[in-house]
């Protein structure tokens, strides 16, 4: 078979992987540094019979993908900081109505228009708490081009498995990086699809918990004629204010991710075996951290790295273990410590958390990290 080795950018890989995962609808609104994803989708989707539409704003883009998903398509939107803020209202809707969709946010500096063209990891918390109310969250943070492809496929699978919006968080460097890579064999991809109802329409409820925490999902126009609302609803999909039903439903939403955490969390260890200083990183900063680990090792320092491929939910047990056995945990982030603040709570008094926070738009250099490693000694 002909291997497809060629130059791809990170943004292109999101689009290619989305199409390979079965995505057939993209609704977007241009914003730097995510526009290349929309551009690639506008090129690819009509070729495979799909649909690309540029909506009037990000609120509409998010609404359009929810509509298309309810009609039965796998859907994607891509944006960046300010656009991610605008999408939050309808992201909340997708959580509430349990509509599978993938939101790619190529992070840039904020708040507001911030640094449109510069690198940041500014939306780690917005990805978790951006919309109002309680809801589960799954967010992925690829650091390498091959990984963008792999984790985009995974994001679509998660969306379908858990019937919810999935956040794919890239930083500007990762999205704009280009290199020659070999795409995986399409035949060997594992692609998941939403669980379909097995009962006839008269016995179908769109939020029927008899089938577990993720109810089977019918699509519009297939004879099921169900109702979807962003209001709190019961298993029939119609609004309810019954405190017990609302409470149970909110708990189920959280449980559908929390009970599967072990299948969702995804991280990588690098030279961790004898490490007593640990760098805890994600996205492009993890690439600098990896170099810093190598450089420190060559100086004889026992340092390693734990890198998150899925940033939400966090691997609790592993982080706690890390906290109790390491002398220091260094957390480099292109924000003012959004993840560090969380890890500090895990650490309590067990270990020292050392933050490296750059928000000026220039990457964290391996030397910046190496200097902190030396401080930690």
């Amino acid at each position, binding site marked *: 078979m002909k291997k497809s080795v060629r130059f791809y950018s990170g943004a292109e890989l999101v689009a290619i992987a989305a199409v390979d995962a079965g995505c057939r609808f993209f609704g977007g609104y241009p914003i730097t540094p995510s526009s290349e994803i929309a551009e690639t989708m506008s090129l690819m989707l009509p070729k495979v019979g799909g649909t690309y539409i540029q909506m009037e704003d990000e*609120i*509409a883009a998010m*609404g359009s993908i929810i509509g298309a998903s309810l009609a039965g398509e796998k859907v994607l939107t891509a944006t960046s900081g300010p656009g991610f803020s605008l999408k939050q209202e309808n992201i909340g809707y997708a959580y509430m109505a349990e509509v599978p969709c993938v939101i790619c946010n190529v992070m840039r500096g904020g708040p507001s228009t911030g640094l449109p063209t510069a690198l940041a990891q500014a939306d780690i918390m917005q990805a978790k708490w951006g919309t109002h109310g309680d809801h589960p969250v799954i967010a992925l943070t690829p650091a390498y081009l091959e990984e963008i492809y792999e984790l985009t496929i995974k994001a679509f699978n998660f969306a379908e498995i858990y019937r919810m919006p999935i956040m794919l968080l890239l930083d500007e460097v990762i999205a704009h990086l280009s290199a020659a890579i070999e795409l995986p064999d399409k035949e060997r991809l594992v692609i998941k699809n939403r669980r379909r109802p097995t009962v006839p329409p008269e016995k179908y409820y769109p939020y029927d918990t008899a089938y577990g925490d993720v109810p089977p999902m019918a699509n519009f126009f297939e*004879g099921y004629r169900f109702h979807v609302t962003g209001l709190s609803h019961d298993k029939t999909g119609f609004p309810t204010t019954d405190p017990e039903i609302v409470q149970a439903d909110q708990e189920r939403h959280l449980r559908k991710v929390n009970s599967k955490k072990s299948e969702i969390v995804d991280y990588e260890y690098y030279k961790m075996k004898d490490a007593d200083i640990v760098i805890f990183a994600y996205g492009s900063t993890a690439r600098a951290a990896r170099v810093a680990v190598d450089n420190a090792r060559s100086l004889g320092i026992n340092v390693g790295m734990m890198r998150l491929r899925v940033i939400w939910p966090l691997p609790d047990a592993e982080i706690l273990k890390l906290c109790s056995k390491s002398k220091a945990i260094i957390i480099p982030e292109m924000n003012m410590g959004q993840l560090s603040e969380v890890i500090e709570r895990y650490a309590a008094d067990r270990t020292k958390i050392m933050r490296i926070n750059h928000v000026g738009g220039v990457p964290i250099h391996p030397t910046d990290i190496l200097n902190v490693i030396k401080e930690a000694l």
Partner: protein
Amino acid sequence: MAFEYEKYLRMDKIPHLWCPGCGIGVVLKAMLRAVENMGWNKDDVAFVSGIGCTSRAPGYIDCNTLHTTHGRALAFATGIKLARPAKHVVIFSGDGDATAIGGNHFIHACRRNINMTLVVVNNNTYGMTGGQHSPTTPIGYKTSTTVYGNIDPTFDICMLARGAGASYVARATVNKGKQLEKYITKGFEHNGFSVIVATANCHTQFGRKNKMGDPISARKWIADREIPLEKAREMKAEELKDRVITGEFITEEPEKTRWDNYNHPVHEYTEAYQTIRDKAQEKK
């Protein structure tokens, strides 16, 4: 023979939450008769709405129904229609939903000329939230947020739709259910974006604050202001003060195309997108 509304309603959801005598019921009934006129299969129709009293309508209809976020119904509907162009997508919206918070989505749905029908129930107020003023509250009228009288100029939703590119635009009042039914049916038949504005009473909120707190006086107020388009054409501007013009503002034949402001023919959007797919799939 009496029309069998039960055929299209989710009878287990009745009684509805609207106030007795609310104008929305008239619009819902006209809508259901229009669906019957079209002979549509209920499985093939999606009703989409935003938030507000009006937007509760889809919940009562036995079709695929989607109650979205405030003002955003058209965005969701656009996604549904593009994903399934052969299906029928109908949107219910209040005046606030369609032209305040959803104004941007409204003008762009008109501009795209996508084959969907939007029915705006214009009751001149934000009914659901307690009767605040909306972009269609007439100047001088009282609402819970214009207690000294409204000074905000109004939108004419039909003119807005026409200017933005909708290709079938009509208005009727809830006093004339038959006319509403006719316009909604024509909207359904039309291949392009159609907007039907139903001038309706919200006696509970808007009426009560303006000395017409019961359905009859609120509907009389509507009747007194109504002027059919044919008559309005022969009247002077000052005679049209405080009048609401009803009729069909654009009635294009199905085979005729809309022309945009550069005199380019505008096609129905899902058909236009199919030509993009064909182009993309052309073997070089």
